[in-house]
Each structure stands twice: as structure tokens, then as C-alpha cells.
């Protein structure tokens, strides 16, 4: 498999090559569905089942992923971290990558899978993307300042998508 030149596509290709079960959420998911916002990191929710966590670890090894909070220490996530519902904010050799065990009020990969749509990301690369309706519902239930700020744009984007 040829590695995509784009860094974000290359991260996704690595995850797919390792057969990681994941879906794209957050700003990238919103932008891919037409929301006019800027984003600077790639957020994914991964399945926390043990087999998938092993695959995630293999992919992260290839991506040379370390925790972003203290990059000088080069701390790497372990299986116990990836099995938890917590958020692992990482820096890979290709850029930032956030691995989320759950989002909103405890919504996991299996909870969200039915609310994801499949998109092509290249000739032989497909990814699952969380739909806008669920993104809005999650931001509403979380209610944080940052999440509230994005809501008007997401709601209007959803309205326009429904009109189209």
C-alpha cells in the first residue's frame, strides 16, 4: 500500500493498515460534512476491546506516538490507557492525533458506530465519520464553553445540508 503524501491521510492509512476499528469525530468530522471551521488535530474514537487496543498500539508504534503534554519525556500510551474511556492526546511523527475512549457522557465506539457514515478518503481508503446530528447532540450534552462556541455553525451547517 502506497503511503499518502498528506499527513492526515497517512495517519488514517496507518490505522486502516493495522485494521484498527475507529471513527473520526470532532472538527475534522464536522469539516468533512461541510462545516466551515478550522481544525488543527485529528480526533478519533477507537474500540476499546482488547484485540483492537493491540492493533492501536501497533499502529501508534509505527507512528512514533508520544503524549503531547510533555513531549520531552516521550511518554507512550500503554494498553491500560487505550482501554479506558479517557482521552489520549498524542503527537505522532505526522502530527497531532487524539485517541478518545469515549466522548460526551460516556459514549463509546460501539454506541457511536450506528451514527457514523462511511466516506472514501482515497482510492483504496475508507473511513467512518460521526454524523453532524450526533456531534451536535454530544456538544449540547457536554455544555462546555468550547463546545458551545462551535454549536451555531454546526447547527446551521446541518440545516443547510438538509435543504440541499
Amino acid at each position: 500500500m502506497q503511503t499518502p503524501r498528506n499527513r492526515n491521510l497517512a495517519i488514517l492509512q496507518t490505522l486502516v493498515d493495522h485494521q484498527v476499528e475507529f471513527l473520526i469525530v470532532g472538527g475534522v468530522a464536522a469539516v468533512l460534512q461541510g462545516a466551515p471551521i478550522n481544525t488543527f488535530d485529528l480526533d478519533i474514537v477507537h474500540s476499546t476491546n482488547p484485540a483492537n487496543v493491540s492493533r492501536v498500539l501497533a499502529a501508534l508504534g509505527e507512528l512514533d506516538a508520544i503524549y503531547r503534554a510533555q513531549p520531552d519525556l516521550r511518554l507512550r500510551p500503554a494498553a491500560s490507557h487505550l482501554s479506558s474511556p479517557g482521552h489520549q492526546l498524542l503527537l505522532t511523527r505526522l502530527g497531532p492525533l487524539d485517541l478518545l475512549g469515549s466522548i460526551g457522557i460516556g459514549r463509546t465506539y460501539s454506541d457511536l458506530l450506528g451514527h457514523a457514515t462511511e466516506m472514501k478518503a482515497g482510492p483504496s481508503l475508507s473511513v467512518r465519520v460521526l454524523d453532524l446530528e450526533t456531534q451536535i447532540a454530544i456538544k449540547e450534552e457536554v455544555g462546555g464553553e468550547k463546545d458551545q462556541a462551535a454549536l451555531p455553525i454546526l447547527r446551521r451547517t446541518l440545516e443547510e445540508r438538509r435543504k440541499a
Partner: protein
Amino acid sequence: MLSCDRIAMSPYGSDGVDVTLIRWMLSLTPAERLAVLQDFTDFVWEVRDANATESKPRHPPDAG
């Protein structure tokens, strides 16, 4: 010693902002920051092109 567990427990500020991302962006040069933004823009265009069902202009028409 700072453990991975401590880092993973509270990655965001009380306002929900990811400070680690801001610090990482601040560690880059302005040119590198633009490159990050460009990379995301290129990524979105590549995915949109891959999912395009009909030919549409990639850029908005000139305003002038």
C-alpha cells in the same frame, strides 16, 4: 516522576480547551503553523474529491 496516568487523566482546561495543542502550535514556527493548516485543508479537499459524485469547481468564483 510524572506518570502517563496523570497526563491522561486531565488533558483539558476547565473551559474544555486542549492546552497541549496550543502549546504544540506555539512550539512551531509561523511557517510550520501555516503548513499544519494547509495540510488539514489539503486533507479535506482530497476526501471531498474522493467522495465527489459530480464535477464541481474546487474554489469559489472570483468576487471581483
